[in-house]
């Protein structure tokens, strides 16, 4: 006599699966990073209440499969310490972690490993992912956000509603340059060929440069440095799926962290205004397509104080 409200179940981050009577719980790990001591909790839930397996989701969370619907309350209680650690601890507002996840529409914020480890990264992607989690979760609207350290885009930021790509904003001091050409050769070989030599010194074509910062990592004398202000390229409305899949396009360059967060928050208001009634999971991208880029832009930039050097795309061609 199993009687459940599937909508409530799904908002609680459980899934209605093909196996009758069994659900699966998605555990959020913002930035895909967490202290290893949450693992025994996952193990306990999976072995005691699940089918003994864990699935690593595309968005870097865990899915614990084969849980009986009846066991949801006890599983919620077991997962509470993880919610405390990974959500409450970083400032996410959750009233009672023992009730499980309060929403599932806004997806886990994924991140490449970033500058804790990766030599190419231009910022701490994990920290930024956690800041965003705290700013936008919990929410039922279907938002996908990811942070990636550099234009290599290991996390596939270009397939998100909001993809955040680190910019190095490199500076060159010719007094330290020995003309070895390491930066020039590497840029031609691995990046965009934005650098060339002129009389023993380097010239940068800013139109071609993507601010990946590889020249900084190559230069033996550190004639290249990164800007100490953190700036990003914000790409928007990328998507996979059946209807018109596409890569996210550049919305802003040279934008700062606070503005990005505000823009994402503003977009929730935009979606609430224009979403098709009754279609709670409508992708933002389709709504933007329908209402037009200019309407989106108007909402997104409301009360955002952009840094002087930020550039917003005046028009958008998807």
């Amino acid at each position: 006599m199993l009687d459940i409200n599937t909508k409530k179940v799904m908002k609680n981050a459980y899934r209605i699966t093909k196996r009758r009577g069994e659900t699966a719980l998605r555990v959020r790990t913002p930035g895909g990073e967490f202290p290893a001591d949450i693992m025994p909790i996952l193990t306990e839930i999976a072995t005691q209440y699940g089918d003994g397996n864990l699935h690593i989701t595309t968005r870097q969370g865990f899915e614990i499969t084969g849980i009986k619907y009846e066991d949801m309350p006890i599983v919620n209680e077991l997962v509470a310490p993880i919610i405390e650690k990974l959500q409450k601890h970083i400032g996410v507002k959750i009233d009672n972690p023992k009730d499980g996840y309060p929403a599932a529409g806004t997806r886990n914020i994924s991140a490449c490993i970033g500058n804790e480890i990766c030599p190419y990264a231009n910022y701490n992607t994990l920290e930024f992912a956690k800041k965003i989690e705290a700013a936008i979760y919990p929410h039922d609207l279907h938002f996908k956000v990811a942070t990636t350290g550099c234009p290599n885009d290991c996390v596939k930021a270009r397939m998100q509603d909001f993809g955040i790509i680190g910019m190095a904003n490199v500076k060159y001091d010719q007094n330290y340059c020995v003309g070895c050409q390491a930066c020039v050769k590497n840029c031609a070989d691995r990046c965009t060929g934005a650098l060339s030599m002129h009389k023993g010194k380097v010239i940068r074509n800013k139109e071609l440069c993507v601010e990946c910062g590889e020249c900084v990592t190559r230069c033996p004398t550190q004639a290249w440095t990164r800007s100490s202000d953190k700036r990003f390229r914000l790409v928007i409305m990328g998507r996979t799926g059946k209807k018109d899949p596409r890569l996210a396009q550049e919305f802003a360059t040279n934008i700062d962290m606070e503005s990005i967060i505000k823009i994402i928050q503003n977009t929730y208001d935009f979606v609430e205004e224009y979403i098709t009634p009754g279609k709670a999971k409508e992708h933002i991208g389709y709504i933007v397509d329908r209402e037009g880029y200019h309407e989106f832009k108007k909402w997104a930039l409301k009360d955002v104080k952009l840094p002087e050097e930020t550039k917003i795309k005046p028009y958008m061609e998807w």
Partner: protein
Amino acid sequence: MGYKMGLKEFDKIFEILSQDYEIYGPKTIEKAGRFSDTNNIRYEKISSIEELEYKEKSLFSPKDVLFPVNETMFNIEGEKLKEIEEEDKKYLIFLRSCDLNAIDRLDNMFLKNGNIEDNYYKKKRQNTKFILMECIESYLNCFCVSMNTNKADNYSMGIKLANDEIYLEIKDKEFDDLFKGCEKENYTVKFIEENQHKVEVPNIEDIKLELFNDEMWEAYDRCIGCGRCNFSCPTCTCFTTTDIYYDENKTKGERRRTWASCHVDGFSDMAGGHSFRQNTGSRMRYKVMHKIYNYKKRFGENMCVGCGRCDDRCPEYISYAKCINLVTEKTREEA
């Protein structure tokens, strides 16, 4: 004479010194390192003792002050060359013992190598005095003790920073008066007596031609020829000279010298396109032999002062120090 004082008190003296001297020291350049959110430490002008990076070893060396990365030697006007006149500046440089010993290597290379003195180096060098920083620890990769460069005595002042206080040893009479009225303290610089690593340098008589052809050098073909080891080395003095004519006025220009590295492509290129040492393993051999063999044959001491910066910075984890020990082992096998 020794003294002790707070940093603020020393800064007043620093200010007085700044009137006569350009003061250089290792400085942390925030977030200017190779990777994001890492720092660089290089020699720059400093204007207070707070700016001095006393705790960490610098990535670049004090040679940058006396032998800049780029230096204009002549202004060119049409067919005429006009030598750059160095302003009459005086320099004070904060450095560690290994680096002070390295200054002696630079002196040999620029002033005592053949009959010609290098004017550009000389003009700066003769107006330079040194402030020795006591090493409170031996850093990763240091092997100064093995190279006998852990000690030095040709410095004007010695300093130690501890608990927000500065201890001073004044050796140069010129500076005596500045410290009148400061609290006296029985302080002299202490030197590092032991490093984590020991390096044994071979006898130059034991280095035979076979060693140059030994297969050991092939292991160093993994060197990417970036030049970090040479550019950070306090004793590398190679440069290349270029005439540059300005875009705005092609009859005017400058003759400029720029650091060169024997690891970087192009170092041994000759007119006509011939180039020696194409594989990087043989460049490693060339560098190592210069540091502990060729230079020693000429000047009677090792060029290398054991600062370990080459090992600190090599992106391919090539250890120059380990290589010397390997060379020494080989000479013993062959003997």
